């Protein structure tokens, strides 16, 4: 039986003891320390800090504290983590080593470009690889995450139409789309038109035809979609949108299923973002950092933000190109999450063409295999199932289970944790009641897939015979079931130690 570590660990503020020190700075040379008094005197008194309430702890106390916290955290390196659309594949540890190299970490982005040729060459080579994988013409590395890539993509859609002298205000998004799609479209100033899914879980073509008008700026699509189903009418979808004068945006969250098998560029997509922290194995780090590079067609490349990474053959050197008059505005500081791209690049090298393709195939095989073991379970349905194979993920509905036992998807998820398996995504996509969205990835051995199926079967058994047990889960995690409502209620809201200790406002 699984048992997660359960330390009754206080907050670092509660560990604090006055006078304790966890790290000391070097002693200042006397010529420098001699300047401190005068430098301080130059600052007006009213601009000097009076008090500072930070904890004080010895180095071991700090090390122990964070080691204990790590032991109360579940990661891919601990066990199966089948979050749908999150592609929790193995994060090769070698990549962490590569990204920790001195020449990655301690190189400043504003150094003379002759001293950063290595970084520029790596990005340039990576760009070529990403173009080849997606079938796009050119990439920007700047977006910090998939959502920022979407924001950039939407801004480029807008720039494209404005260049044509058009003000198209509407972005079409399927009802099964990730929440970021409508959020990004709205953020970029578009109104969102939702197109519903048909009985096979794909974009309803008839409805799309009526929605797509001269007001349509574009369509944001994930393919395979969030149900893990390939949009087999993709050619028609592209014709409808292009026919209406709109652009096609590819949300790369689910690219893992088709790497080396099919390319968004070949399907007719104009803009693509990738989530390298999904498809290309860079770790999620408990929420980030990731990176969301954006690729475009030749026609749209002028809109990519500055700078881009270029090569000058005459001097055999790489450079940052700021001369991009049509580029959409600045998205963030500097050129993108370089350390993350080192991992991306190394991953692509280690996989090679055949490895990427095999990863896609293995992810699809694993997903279909697992689905075949789960679909017959009592109380479980596979909505929108047309008998076609799924891709890298699938979505189950537990609504019958919920009706018959009172055990909901949420409860099932909590019970998974007791078995040392992370729960799938719950309640998404929104078009499925009591959804469990499962993506096992190519990294999971068959034994773990079998285990997952067995655990789920046990949970369902339990739901029918001893529902209270499931409703009270989890029991084996660091803490029992959490009161989430209390965490957001105005009366009990506590978002910092400062709020907890009631610091004067």
């Amino acid at each position: 039986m699984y048992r997660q570590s359960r330390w009754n660990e206080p907050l670092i503020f509660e560990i604090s003891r006055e006078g304790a020190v966890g790290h000391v700075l070097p002693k200042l040379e006397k010529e420098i320390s001699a300047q401190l008094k005068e430098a301080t005197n130059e600052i007006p008194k009213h601009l000097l800090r009076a008090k500072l309430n930070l904890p004080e702890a010895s180095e071991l106390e700090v090390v122990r504290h964070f080691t204990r916290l790590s032991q109360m955290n579940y990661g891919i390196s601990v066990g199966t983590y089948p979050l749908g659309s999150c592609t929790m594949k193995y994060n090769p540890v070698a990549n962490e080593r590569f990204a920790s190299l001195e020449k990655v970490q301690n190189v400043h982005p504003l150094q003379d470009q002759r001293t950063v040729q290595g970084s520029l060459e790596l990005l340039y080579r990576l760009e070529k690889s990403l173009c080849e994988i997606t079938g796009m013409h050119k990439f920007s590395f700047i977006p910090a995450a998939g959502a920022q890539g979407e924001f950039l993509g939407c801004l480029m859609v807008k720039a494209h139409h404005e260049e044509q002298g058009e003000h198209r205000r509407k972005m079409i998004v399927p009802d099964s789309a990730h929440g970021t799609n409508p959020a990004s479209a709205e953020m970029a100033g578009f109104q969102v038109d939702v197109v519903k899914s048909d009985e096979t879980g794909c974009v309803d073509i008839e409805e799309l035809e009526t929605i797509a008008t001269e007001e349509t700026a574009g369509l944001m699509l994930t393919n395979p979609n969030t149900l893990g189903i390939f949009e087999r009418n993709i050619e028609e979808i592209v014709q409808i949108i292009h026919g209406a004068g709109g652009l096609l945006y590819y949300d790369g969250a689910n690219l893992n299923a088709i790497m080396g098998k099919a390319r968004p560029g070949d399907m007719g997509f104009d803009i693509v973002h990738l989530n390298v922290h999904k498809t290309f194995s860079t770790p999620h780090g408990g929420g980030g950092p990731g990176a969301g590079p954006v690729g475009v067609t030749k026609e749209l490349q002028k809109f990519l933000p500055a700078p881009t990474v270029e090569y000058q053959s005459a001097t055999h050197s790489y450079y940052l190109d700021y001369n991009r008059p049509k580029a959409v505005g600045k998205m963030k500081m500097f050129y993108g999450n370089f350390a993350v791209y080192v991992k991306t690049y190394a991953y692509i090298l280690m996989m090679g063409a055949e490895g990427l393709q095999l990863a896609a195939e293995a992810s699809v095989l694993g997903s279909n295999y697992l689905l075949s073991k789960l679909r017959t379970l009592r109380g479980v349905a596979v909505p929108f199932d047309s008998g076609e194979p799924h891709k890298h993920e699938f979505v189950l509905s537990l609504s019958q289970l919920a009706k018959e036992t009172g055990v909901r998807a949420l409860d099932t998820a909590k019970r998974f944790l007791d078995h040392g398996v992370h729960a799938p995504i719950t309640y998404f996509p929104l078009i499925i009641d009591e959804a469990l969205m499962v993506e096992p990835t190519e990294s999971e051995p068959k034994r773990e897939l079998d285990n997952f199926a067995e655990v789920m079967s046990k949970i369902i058994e339990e739901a029918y015979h001893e529902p209270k047990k499931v409703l009270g889960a989890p029991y084996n995690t660091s803490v029992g079931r959490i009161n989430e409502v209390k965490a957001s209620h105005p009366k009990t809201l506590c978002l910092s130690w400062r709020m907890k200790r009631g610091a004067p406002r």
Partner: protein
Amino acid sequence: MKHTVFSHPFIANSATADWKSMLSGLRIKSIQDLYSDVPAKFLLRRKLNLGDPLSELETFNHVSRILANNRSYREMSVFVGAGTWLHYIPAAVSEAISRSEFVTSYTQYQPEASQGMLMALFEYQSLMAELLEMDVVNASMYDWATALGEAGRMSARLTRRREVVVPRFASPERRGTLQTYLDPIGGRMVEAAQSKESGQIVLESLKEHVSSDTAAVYLENPSYLGFLETQVTAVAEISHDAGALFIVGVDPTSLGIIKPPGDYGADIVVGEGQPFGNPVNFGGPLLGILACRNDLKMIRAMPGRIIGMTTTVDETQRAFVMSLQTREQHIRRGEATSNICTNNALCALASAVYLSLLGKNGVQELSKHILAKTKYAIERFSAIGTVEAPLFKAPHFKEFTLGLKDRHADDVLRELLKHEICGGKSLAPEFPELGESVLVCVTELHSKQQIDNYVETLDKILG
């Protein structure tokens, strides 16, 4: 196309008996059957042009060979900052953030199994809140620039106004990002003058530019160009009198000695947390700080994840969980306060470990170190007579301007590079009114000898 199933370390079942047994379990002969729904015309009929898989060793050699063409600060003296800064990272920070339980975890959708990261992020929020003297800090943004962009939109949302007043010498990259984020809501930036002599915001100009359209006034302190703004209280008053919010941008390494923005009327604070335990990494990932006061309206208008403290359902244990998720895209979709989803949590964790280690005394020492070194460098440069250091008569922290009079900054920087010195960032392209000048950065990492060497080399070059 020939199809091969081979053994690969990252693909668990390939070339094992399990592969075949999974296929036969599905009653299919070939993996291709699982792609029968992809229209034939879109199936790639060739191998991607990417080369064969490399081993870890080959990859290490390959990546190292490319990166050999980089020069790190261990090979030369790097005096450039301007948005990301070289600092020492204690080993205990690197160790903590290398724990794979943290590294390989996702956003905490199952909080009961993710208490470690949730508590660490709550601590990041708490440590930063104490440092800024703000009540609420979110669990991270991408960087200072995007935090500012979001703060601008947040202000517009709260005030139903569209303009953000920005001082002339604010970071151009941050200003540009703010503009990008404001554009889609019809927002615009209005520039307030800053004195060419002292860098201080011209209060008359500020008053002229604030109006009933002003959503927020933005101020950087210390500024992008390193000088401190001393009239912070007056700026806060002018903002608030106009019904606008006051956004302050900070380099938090200054806050061991400089008064925190929460103490002089800031409503929203943004900043760059990278200096606390994160490498410069050729510009990313960084760590965007975004904070606000304990005001429910403001908190609900905030973008991004926020971790809250609560208890278990049975109330026997303290617990942590993502709070106020109804602001976010996965719940609110098109109506969300922002589209941000993936953030920079691991960088926030590094900051939490760093701040825990340094603690109260360490952070004060760090600020003093940087302040004293900045002053020392300014004094040394001033003494050579051929440069103006700094251009602004004001106290400086970490960065300062070096006026080169009639010499071209690019030429001087190129000469310096021959002596293994990366001398700073040329400012004329961004601020022509400053003439040929360079933005120089010193931190606790720069030794007295490195600073002396820079000064002496520059003296020779300008000879």
